[in-house]
């Protein structure tokens, strides 16, 4: 099992979610996050006053998937989240030791 974490542009969320649902991903956690990488923040000027946008708004998607699905999930996110411009985001993959569904106590794949 792997945990996949993707940081994407906010307006790409619907596309990525729909693409993932299509390939059979059942659930995911979505968080509003802020940060910066190569795409730095910027300062906007309005009527002479400066308004700093130093952390850029992004969306973080987290999901757990079986080993066989990993490649497909990653490719799907990559394709759906891409604009080709700076700030498209990153995908991280982590190994997962165990998953437990609290309600039933199911473990491993059954609990995903």
């Amino acid at each position, binding site marked *: 099992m792997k945990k996949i974490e993707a940081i994407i*542009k*906010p307006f790409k969320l619907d596309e990525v979610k729909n693409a993932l649902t299509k390939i059979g991903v059942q659930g995911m956690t979505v968080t*509003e996050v802020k940060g910066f990488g190569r795409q730095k923040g910027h300062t*906007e000027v*309005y009527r002479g006053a400066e*308004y700093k946008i130093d*952390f850029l708004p992004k969306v973080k998607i987290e999901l757990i998937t079986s080993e066989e699905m990993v490649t497909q999930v990653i490719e799907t996110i990559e394709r759906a989240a891409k604009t080709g*411009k700076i700030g498209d985001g990153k995908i991280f993959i982590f190994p997962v030791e165990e998953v437990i569904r609290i309600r039933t106590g199911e473990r491993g794949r059954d609990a995903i």
Partner: protein
Amino acid sequence: MQFELGVTKNGLIHTKHRMAQTISTHSSPRDFLRQHSDMVDSLVRKAFQNAQSQVSSPSVCLMAVGGYGKAELAPYSDIDLLLLYSASKKEDLPPLVEKILYPLWDLGLDVSCSSRSINECLKMAQSDLHIKTGLIDGRYLDGEYEFFRNLYGLFTRKILHRKVRDFAGALTKDLHLRHQKYEDPNYALEPNIKEGEGGLRDFQMGRWIIRAKYKTDRWDSILFPDHSQSLEKSLQFLWAVRNQLHLLSGRRQDDLTFELQEKIAPTIGFAHGTEGIEEMMRQYHLATQRISNFVHDILERALYEPSLFKKALSFLQRKKIDENFGMAYGELYLLDPVTFKRDPPRLMTLFHHCQTYQIKMDFRTEEAVMESLPFIDDRFRTSGEVNETFFSILKKGERAAGLLRKMHELGFLSRYIPEFSEVEGKVHYDLYHVHPVDSHSILAVEELEKLRRGLYEKEYPLLTSLIRELENPGILFLTALLHDIGKGREGNHSLIGAEWVERIGTRMGLASEYKDPMVFLVSHHLSMIETAFRRNLQDEQVILHFAQKVKNLNQLKMLYLLTFADIKAVGPEAWTAWKNTLLMELFLKTAHFFERGAVAEPFLTGDEILQKLRESLSPEIISEYADRLPDRYLSCYSSAEIARHIDMARSIEKELLLVEWEIEKEIQAKVTVCTKDRYGLFSKMTGSMFLNRLNILQAQIHTWEDGTALDTFWVEDGTKDIERRLQQFKKDLKKIVSGEVPLRDLLFERIESNGIKQKIIPRVSGEVKINNQDSDFYTIVEIAGEDRLGILYEITQALTDHGCDIHFARISTLGNRIVDVFYVQDEWGEKIEEKQKTDRLKQILLNRLPPREGITLKDHS
């Protein structure tokens, strides 16, 4: 043991359910409470009598206290007993209590019993608020009646009817503490029917005060009949819900959770599904709102109603404000109780005074307001004086939200703006919308007020300065109050709301300069949210369309402020720094568009574009392509040209590129090139033209959203050989674009073989400007300089070499001078802003402007 009281645990549960069914709890839930209480009475008495026969005990009296004392017992409520004994023999009590309690516990009843002497009771009631309030509803059950009479007489005389103001003070404190626990927004969605705001406990408190102050148990006797009837209805409703809550969960469950809301709604006469739940919760909010108003009203009377002595004294301190109103003790009061009936517009004057003098009205004046609601008719609603006073309250913007809330509480607002009654208590069955629509709307006004007063100045300086710039904040406040008014009806609530606001505005006699923005704001109140959170704000097109929708800077400001208030009023967690950043970015970019005047001038609006496209394109094609065509492009070409371009775009799916031309006056031609955009394309085209000695007079290059490049050149060739040269240009361009031959090789080859030499012309000094202010999306490079064959190629090649992607260009030639404008981004799609980079770019371009020796072309003529 189980049959000791002649019934089993399961038997008892069964009886409860049967009773609930036969009484049909929703029609008369109070009857159920009474019957249930009677049934428990007989069990408790039986247990008491059994116990007394089994153990020797002193003479005692058994009392029911608390809610059970009131003989209003919900299916799984606590059963509180009090065992009164005269004085001594305390040690004999525990065995008796055990004997009473055990069989009742075995039946699954939640019974607790305290045993006290009369003196202990009185003493404790003085110091402990809960013991005191428990005794108010105390009821004799069994045993020595004399004890009960004794205690009760002393309690009411010495405790209950004394220091009523202190009692009210203690209850107020208790109420606030209790509500604090339930302040969490989750409780607004899943309220606690007993302890929550406006819940059954609040009602009890009001009743206790009435018992203490007016010495009556008929709480309705001190209210207006209308008022007490609606209160009674609210109570019956809450009881009905609570009975079902208990019966369905099989325990004392007072949290009205989502799961239970869904189960209960159909059992008390609401439709199955979301609609029924929302309607039930609407009733719930209306009921708790009424109870909340009731308890606050009663507490206020007990706390602030002056004593007879003070009343006499206050006569001297009274101050008249005008012929109808006076002030005393920091409260506004009505001089003549029939004023409102005689002259209804004084109602609005009253609220205006409250704002002007920053005081509240006394409760009698509030009652007079409620009593005169029937006099608010269409004449009132269209009265110029009334409406002007209302606007001036809003315009002033101080305590306006508080006054609106008061107007709503008294039922005044829904009479004055009848459309508002449609959203009273209206809830959404979801996790996001914490408040019902009416409170949400008033909260939105409050948020704007806070913003204007500078409470958010540190966190949101931009929003704060924007609301202070507004000439008439009253219009924005009114819009915030009415923005969700369409939610009472089926369909798109923004559009319905806009229609209603139009109607309301007309009725109020608003000038169209105020009404029109209100209608716009209500119909578009979700537009900014949709654009900021779901669209690419790096895309100029997105901002442009948004700007066209919003129409002007003033409406943009108001929409941004309304959006802030709307989200903030949803619940404390709805407004996040994340949302703030995206909304601010959208606002600033759109504002820049308006400030540069770039919205209306060069581009057509969405409607104009559609109209233009319809001239020569079929609806199918329009719907297929409309989104791909940038406004900048659409504004440059006629519909016939666009139709032709779409045809070309369809063929390049098979072919690499298409070149078409029309020759004019033998020496000039308009050349159209269509291909898929790629890096450096423009310089490849200008290079190929240079190869063929085509002098570029003008050019327009555009890239569609789907990556189709459509470029038009106006070229000149003095030799009248233009057709052949264009043919050759097409061949060369194909070779270069396909990668068959690099442009560099072709250039080198031809220059060698032709040995071209440059004609001498007067020098024009070159100038390069790099502008990052005029667009949020592109760096604009403006180049002016001496014209010569191939100059455009050199410039565009330099731009490409320097990592600039050309998105749009306008090339023009004035005599021997060129004026070229390029809209460029770097390879990441960002503007080129670092000074180091722009300086270098400028230098490189300047270097290209004077004629160079490397590539010299001989003029053939």
